């Protein structure tokens, strides 16, 4: 099963709608609660990143026979230094985002923590594609 979502970069109050919808899909088909929780948290972090850093983009979430795979693509500025971005506490987010409770530099580390695999394809000026995988 594949679900596709447009992630708007315009309205931060809508951030999380894709993750929320996909969580209800996983619940409806009776998936393992631990898998649902891990996918939901990682997906939500990635969705927030797509909005904050990528200015919006698209998401494709797929439930396969052996794993859940979710990919976010944006056309933002890309990640300049992946090693720094992976450090807890490092963030390039602005004050406005921090006032909303995000931008604390926990996004990518959290995604890595809750998933079995995280793949990032990015380059400065070329946007970012992030794929997260949770095995069933």
């Amino acid at each position, binding site marked *: 099963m594949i679900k596709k979502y447009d992630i708007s970069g315009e309205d931060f*109050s809508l951030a999380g709608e894709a*993750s929320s919808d996909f969580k209800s899909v996983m619940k409806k088909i009776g998936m393992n609660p631990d898998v649902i*929780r891990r996918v939901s948290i990682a997906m939500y972090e990635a969705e927030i990143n797509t909005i904050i850093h990528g200015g919006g983009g698209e998401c494709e979430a797929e439930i396969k026979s052996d794993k859940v795979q979710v990919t976010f693509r944006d056309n933002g500025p890309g990640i300049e230094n992946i090693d720094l971005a992976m450090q807890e506490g490092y963030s390039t987010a602005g004050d406005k985002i921090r006032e909303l*409770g995000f931008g604390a530099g926990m996004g990518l580390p959290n995604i890595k*923590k809750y998933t079995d695999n995280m793949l990032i394809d990015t380059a400065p000026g070329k946007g970012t594609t992030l794929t997260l995988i949770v095995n069933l």
Partner: protein
Amino acid sequence: MLLSDIKNLLDAKVLTKESNDVLSQKDIHTACGCDLMSDVLAFVKDQSLLLTGLINAQVIRTAEMMDIVAVCFVRGKLPAEEVIELANEKGITILSTELPLYISCGKLYSEGLRGYLND
């Protein structure tokens, strides 16, 4: 600790539509006082209460992802109607207390509601 007991200890109002009967059936195992949703996403366990001074929709979204049972807004802060509606839709209880964050946490901790230590 039952959510109804938490409501009484914090002298809190219920902003969502749950009755006292429903609150007395919601059992809270741990609590977290935090304004950083990124930290909530990193550390909080389920069956939890989140106490926070942030009142935007992302608090409810974060609670939804973490299976957090209830959110308590401190220092008398009231969220926009859309935030309350979202919480109602997701079955997350919203409380509002006049107490500040530190005192709210202290009252609950001293009555036995513990936090979660990350391993």
